[in-house]
């Protein structure tokens, strides 16, 4: 872009303005008229509040279970720290919040809820699935139509909205009771890890538990590995892996879009 005649004044002003909008203490930047009531602190405060309150509201809408788990007041305070450290990088606000889960891992005041980051990952995956590309899910009947000798070499294409979140915490149970129940259920006695499968076969975003080892199968399939080799890898890594259950879950949730034969990889 060519240099602007006399453009530096505006660039400097916007630099000061942007910094003062985001930083925690209220400090009105130079260059704003101050000869009129209300005070310029109140006037500038409207912009600060618009920016921060709208971003905090966007995060609350994206992470409702995280908000319910920590409470509204705590969530807002936490969101303001996140906004200051990670302001949006795009005017497409739907892209804002990808870094929230990893931010929560380092956020000490929430350290007594160690499953919070994985709940945030689950909620973020749901949000991404809502906006992701459309694709038609394949029916599991397509597998049954294949001759048995062709099953091992078939490659399964994954739906663009699909996501898998493996966690040492029962994130699907925690998410579900805090989404659907007026009073969240107490955590089960066997507080064991769960793997969440997020899909959007049509308009609605679905969340369910993936059976043990199925996340390893998905990871292999995502790399273009054929079904036979992918299932072998999942079985080797996880004793309880059951291919039939895993496939029923994945097809049933609309996670698979294509079946193809070939030795491309």
């Amino acid at each position, binding site marked *: *872009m060519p240099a*602007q*005649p*006399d*453009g*530096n*004044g*505006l*660039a400097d*002003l*916007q*630099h000061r*303005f*942007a910094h003062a*909008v*985001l930083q925690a203490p209220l400090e009105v930047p130079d*260059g*704003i*008229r101050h000869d*009129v*009531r*209300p*005070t*310029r602190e*109140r*006037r*500038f405060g*409207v*912009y600060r509040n*618009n*920016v921060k309150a*709208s*971003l905090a509201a*966007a995060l609350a809408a994206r992470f409702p279970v995280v908000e319910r788990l920590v409470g509204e007041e705590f969530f807002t305070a936490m969101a303001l720290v996140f906004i200051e450290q990670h*302001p*949006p*990088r*795009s*005017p*497409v*606000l*739907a892209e804002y919040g990808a870094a929230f889960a990893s931010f929560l891992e380092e956020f000490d005041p929430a350290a007594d809820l160690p499953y919070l980051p994985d709940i945030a990952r689950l909620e973020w995956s749901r949000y991404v*699935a*809502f*906006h*992701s*590309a*459309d694709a038609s899910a394949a029916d599991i009947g397509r597998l049954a139509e294949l001759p048995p000798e062709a099953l091992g070499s078939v490659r399964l294409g994954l739906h*663009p*909205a699909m996501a898998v979140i493996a966690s040492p915490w029962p994130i699907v149970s925690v998410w579900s009771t805090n989404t659907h129940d007026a009073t969240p259920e107490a955590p089960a006695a066997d507080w064991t890890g769960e793997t969440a499968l997020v899909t*959007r076969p049509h*308009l609605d975003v679905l969340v369910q538990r993936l059976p043990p080892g199925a996340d390893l199968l998905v990871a292999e399939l995502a790399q273009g590995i054929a079904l036979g080799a992918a299932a072998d890898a999942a079985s080797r890594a996880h004793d309880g892996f059951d291919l039939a259950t895993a496939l029923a879950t994945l097809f049933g949730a609309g996670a698979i879009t294509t079946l193809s034969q070939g030795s491309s990889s």
Partner: protein
Amino acid sequence: MTADRLLRAGAGLKPEHQRHILEARPDVGWFEVHAENYMGAGGPPHHFLERVRALYPLSVHGVGLSIGSANGMAPGHLGRLKSVVDRYQPFIVSEHLAWSTHEGTFLNDLLPLPYTEATLSLVARHVDEAQTVLGSRILIENPSTYLRFDGEEMPETDFLRALARRSGCGLLLDVNNVVVSAANHGFDPRAYLDCFPHEHVGEIHLAGHAVLESDGDALYVDTHDRTISTEVWSLFRDVIARRGVSPTLIEWDSDVPAWLDLEAEVHQAQSILQTAGGLDARAA
């Protein structure tokens, strides 16, 4: 699509109302969407908008281009806006006299600009670039502002007139923004409207605002979260009576009401347009 239909009142399209609109097909002239809500790859937003678009004319209102940024408009954003415009073929495309992106950081608000010759050159260049890429004229909206800057060189109305002349853009007259800015800066909204370059107006916005009182001073805030004030209705009536009709939008973006409450405001605007323009809304 008749010309009459486009001189009717419309409503901002909210996800809360989409299913009802598709089922009931209410008698409103058109809908407007914020472009940035339709920049994802797929999913329910596009699913519903395609169906609404098949039934009604559409206006695309951008809120993130940042045409007033000294360091350039939001990177890559004009291309995204073009994709939305190409896909949905709106009858109006509009943006704001404001900035929101600085050095890659997006501040989610429409921030104010000092009205100087230097700002005018910058904004005119950006509007020209946007119109070239989009392949059509855009409308630029007068902002609601809460502060003014040292060293400004012209009133907002002169700035907008010069911008329209230099860039060939049209203007979107937001009557609520006039009332909000007038209250915040102590000028008469009627005097502002007397100076406004109405010959460039291609659309009018109406919305509700909040009044925040503190220490005996009031600040008006452009909240879009309630019914339109009687002052805004009165100024709108004057503008329409004296300057003629323009497609008019009711904006209601937070604390979104039941559809019938929003539709009532659209019909109120419609009756004002009809009285002045002698249009028969049912004929469209």
